[in-house]
């Protein structure tokens, strides 16, 4: 029984210049406890898919279940089961770390005492204890990310969605974050669904990759299987493999122009 499964999940936006099919039909499954890398070029529909799976955006077609809850009929169940960290994060720079963590606990219906205890626990787990009384705006990029993730873990979700979690982080903070994601999975069995543009990150972190392009899944498999199939050999770089799959690589030198 997969923890996430989608069938032709689609989203069309109505704009002034006519409909835009951001996601044209995504079929994928994620196993419990898996770290899934969701890759694709800019505009491929990654964030839109994430926003649908986290109930932020209603699909215009298809269906999905997350942790046994149907997206269309049980949004509340989906919300209880998943945590989401958006690209932009989601904390007010003027508010203290402690207040954000406690309020988040209260939004998940914890009592005042429970919320305070959970905030302390999360701060300990994510190495935020010394920062609790700082305003969120004064944190470094890596600290901010840890706070964003702490917020999303408040209710011990079964599934954690991370949208480009390491964009803008320095190498040390990225390595820390990778460790954190692995630790989450190993210690709590949390399923992690993450998008990234860094192929080394996908290679190092993800058990399996799903590659989307123009709103549909174009390839999936373990990093090595994809390298073998699309990159030509198991030693191929994920970069070349990715470009081969999405067809956005440099034009071969001997390609003749179709028309002049």
């Amino acid at each position, binding site marked *: 029984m997969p923890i996430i499964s989608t069938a032709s999940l689609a989203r069309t*936006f109505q704009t002034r210049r006519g409909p835009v099919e951001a996601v044209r039909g995504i079929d994928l499954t994620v196993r419990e406890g898996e770290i899934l890398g969701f890759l694709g070029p800019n505009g491929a529909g990654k964030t839109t898919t994430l*926003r649908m799976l*986290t*109930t*932020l*955006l*209603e699909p215009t077609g298809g269906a999905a279940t997350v942790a046994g809850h149907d997206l269309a009929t049980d949004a*509340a169940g989906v*919300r*209880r089961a*998943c*945590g*989401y960290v*958006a*690209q*932009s*994060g*989601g*904390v*007010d*720079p*003027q*508010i203290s770390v402690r*207040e954000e963590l406690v*309020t*988040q606990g*209260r*939004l*998940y*219906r914890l009592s005042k005492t429970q919320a305070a205890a959970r905030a302390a626990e999360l701060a300990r787990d994510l190495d935020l204890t010394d920062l609790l009384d700082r305003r969120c705006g004064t944190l470094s990029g890596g600290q901010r990310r840890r706070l964003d993730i702490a*917020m*999303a873990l408040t*209710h011990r979700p079964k599934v954690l969605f991370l949208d480009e979690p390491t964009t803008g982080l320095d190498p040390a903070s990225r390595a820390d974050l990778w460790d954190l994601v692995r630790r989450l999975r190993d210690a709590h069995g949390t399923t992690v669904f993450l998008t990234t543009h860094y192929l080394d990150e996908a290679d190092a972190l993800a058990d399996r990759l799903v590659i989307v392009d123009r709103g549909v899944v174009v390839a999936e498999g373990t990093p090595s299987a994809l390298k073998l199939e699309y990159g030509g050999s198991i030693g191929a770089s994920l970069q070349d493999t990715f470009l081969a799959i999405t067809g956005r690589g440099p034009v071969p030198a001997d390609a003749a122009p179709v028309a002049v």
Partner: protein
Amino acid sequence: MLLHDTAIIYGRYLRQSLRSRFALLFGVLMPLLYLVFFGPLLTGLPLGGRGSSWQVLVPGLLLQLGLFGALFAGFMIILENGQGVVERMRVTPVSRLALLLGRVLREATVFVLQAVLLVLAALAMGLRAPLIGIVIGFAFVALLTVSLASLSYALAMKVRTPQEFGPLVNAVSMPSMLLSGLMLPMTLGPRWLDVLSHFMPFRYLVDAMRDAYVGAYTTDHMLYGVLVAVGFAVLAVTVGTRVFRTAGA
């Protein structure tokens, strides 16, 4: 659950307001300037109503405070959208109505507080009005703030950039102020202007509040004022909640 959630959201934003006491005082400045520099011009002018010129002017200024302040409330949600705060909250099981109500009740609290300050200043300038009437006036300000802040949030969730939001709000607020007779009673003007102003919902609120300030609580104006204020609030909160539920579409 709704009460619990609303209280949490309300608390979060009220603490935010209390942190910026300067902004709180600054909000009263514009109506205060009207009170001090415009109010004295009206003493002795025949305004057609019962009571003194202050009993005509102060209700208008209070509603003006609510009108301009609440209509611009949406700017905050544009900021919060940029920070990802709104989405982060919408992923939690929190009630969508509470996401809106907690915020607009904060606005209402802030404006009633500012209204109290303004009335105190008006008393010093020469306003005399029955206490019950003044309290009824605060209720109208609160209702108007809830309505307009809801609509402002809804609009801000839709347009998403301050560049679009500012001009749109200005386009609404100026005619609303002029056509509702906030400054001077519309009955002073030509017939067409008076008729036109009846299409402006705030007109009914101003008339009702002016009646309250002279101690007339059982008039037609009061009835229409209450009906329009309550109806408008229900409509605005419904629209606002819908936007919080489906935002991002």
